[in-house]
């Protein structure tokens, strides 16, 4: 018997009992929709994290003042002022695996343009900072060495600050007052978006490090930096760079034996890679949970197919009497089961994709529906049909024609 005819018979059988077919499919529909939606939300999360990794810049090590406990929690870092511009220079010259290092200081305060004012983060950073963070300007220019060396009062605005102080106007060349001190705006930075911690990275004003050290932050000694940002030469040497920095600073800060270090290094990409891993694991877990409902749906299909085989015993007998072979009957019921699950799978894919899109619209959360996940879901729904349809189909094909014909 040809496939088309088998398909036609199966379709007729499903059409005959529309409501039952639909209810039977429901388990698969829900299962597949859940799998699709979960995978979409999960890969959306992975996407967000990888975007954030990209927004921080790759291969970055952060050196912070203060010590760590064994659990990785920083303690006593609040007012510690243990890192200096000299440390930054030493890292640049003595650590072969380091590409760039930049000291930063951080403060916060009002920035004023005419009658507009905005409370924001004020970052002092050497010109290398923007290389490290891979953060170009979209208007004007970035810092150069003269700005840094001369402690010139120039600043770069983050997008959020620029919008709040200047609206649509071009800020480049204007004067703003940062903590009441006038600064010339020389550039506007490209939009970065949210940091992994959920902060708006564009809500910041940048000034040269030395300018900040002199005018905007108070410190016990000159040349104190709040943190050092380091870029390793490549992903392969990032761990090497970290240990080079550690041993260099241990030496410079005379930390030996049991003495606790007065600084901490953090490999940001590594932290985010872990976050990415866990979000992937999470979406896998969600997918696994969702696929349990697929199995439940499959059992439902098996149940209904068994009922259907019993109900149609006489039909099976008739078909056998007029020449259907065991395999014809087997294929007929297998086709019916697979058709049921694949149809359910298609509806489920539609529902899952629609649901994921709705969630992403409503919660402003990106969802990614990959073609692979659709193909996987579709193949999987077919596999559920084959797996759970086989036993009922086998049962139908194994019927004795005489008994089947006599069945009431």
């Amino acid at each position, binding site marked *: 018997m040809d496939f088309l005819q088998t398909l036609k018979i199966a379709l007729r059988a499903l059409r005959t009992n529309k409501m039952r077919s639909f209810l039977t499919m429901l388990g698969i529909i829900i299962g597949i929709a859940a799998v699709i939606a979960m995978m979409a939300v999960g890969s959306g999360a992975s996407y967000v994290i990888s975007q954030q990794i990209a927004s921080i810049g790759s291969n970055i090590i952060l050196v912070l003042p203060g010590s760590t406990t064994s659990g990785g929690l920083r303690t006593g870092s609040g007012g510690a002022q243990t890192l200096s511009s000299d440390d930054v220079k030493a890292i640049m010259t003595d650590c072969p695996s380091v590409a760039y290092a930049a000291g930063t200081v951080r403060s916060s305060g009002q920035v004023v343009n005419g009658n507009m004012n905005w409370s924001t983060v004020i970052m002092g950073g050497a010109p290398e900072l923007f290389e490290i963070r891979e953060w170009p300007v979209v208007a004007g220019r970035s810092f150069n060495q003269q700005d840094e060396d001369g402690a010139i009062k120039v600043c770069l605005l983050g997008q959020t600050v620029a919008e709040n102080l200047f609206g649509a106007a071009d800020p480049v060349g204007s004067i703003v007052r940062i903590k009441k001190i006038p600064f010339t705006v020389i550039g506007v930075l490209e939009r970065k978006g949210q940091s992994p911690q959920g902060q708006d990275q564009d809500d910041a004003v940048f000034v040269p490090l030395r300018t900040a050290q002199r005018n905007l932050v108070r410190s016990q000694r000159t040349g104190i930096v709040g943190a050092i940002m380091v870029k390793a030469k490549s992903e392969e040497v990032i761990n090497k760079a970290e240990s080079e920095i550690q041993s260099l600073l241990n030496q410079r800060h005379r930390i030996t034996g049991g003495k606790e270090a007065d600084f901490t290094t953090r490999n940001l990409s590594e932290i985010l890679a872990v976050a990415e891993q866990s979000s992937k694991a999470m979406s896998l877990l969600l997918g696994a949970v969702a696929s349990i409902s697929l199995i439940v749906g499959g059992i439902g299909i098996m149940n209904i197919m068994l009922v259907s085989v019993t109900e149609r015993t006489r*039909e099976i007998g008739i078909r056998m009497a007029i*020449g259907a*072979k065991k395999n014809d009957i087997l294929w007929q019921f297998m086709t019916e089961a697979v058709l049921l699950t694949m149809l359910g799978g298609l509806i489920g894919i539609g529902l899952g994709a629609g649901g994921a899109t709705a969630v992403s619209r409503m919660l402003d959360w990106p969802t990614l529906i990959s073609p692979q996940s659709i193909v996987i879901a579709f193949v999987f729904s077919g596999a559920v049909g084959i797996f759970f349809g086989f036993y009922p189909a086998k049962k139908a094909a194994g019927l004795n024609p005489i008994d089947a014909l006599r069945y009431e």
Partner: protein
Amino acid sequence: MSSVISLTGIRRVFSMGDQQFEALKGISFSVDAGEFVAIMGASGSGKSTCMNILGCLDLPTAGSYLLDGLDVGGMTPNQLADIRNKKLGFVFQGFNLLARTPAVENVELPLVYAGLHSKERRQKALSAMEQVGLSGKENNHPSQLSGGQQQRVAIARALVNNPAVILADEPTGNLDSSTSNEIMGLFTALNRQGITIIMVTHEHDVAAYAGRQITFKDGSIISDSQTKRTS
């Protein structure tokens, strides 16, 4: 004339647990091409058991069965299915049509399993329906047809594959007498066209349509109105 069917020493023993029941006790007869045979006998005398064996739905415990010269005894289930499909046509007491399926598709069904293409199937099915006088009822579902019409659909289905023999187990059992006469008229007409028919009935007036009557009793043949070919 050559024998289409030749049964020799057919025994059929049913075993239920440790009990054994011999439903056919070594029967032998042959049927020539073009014959119209009625098998008669009391209920439980083994008529249906014999028909099931003739129809290749069941295998005898002992004895040999030649159908159209082929020994059915050693065949695999798939070969038997093929024989049922190509050499035999069945008509049942309860019609046994597929519900919710148009008459013409019921008639086509043997051709579906024979692997014919849809165009050829439809053409043969339509001509079989014409032969049984059901033109115009092609798209009716069985529930939209009278008992007599349903049995005609079943006869068309039995005819459509151009079988060597049509086997009918109490084809008029569910029909009133005037409809029975119509159906028997149809069988007679088909037989005149050269189709071999073996029919089970326990009604004498129905059996009278056949040219030969074989009577069963307790699993044996007690009379055959045309004994010359019985071996």
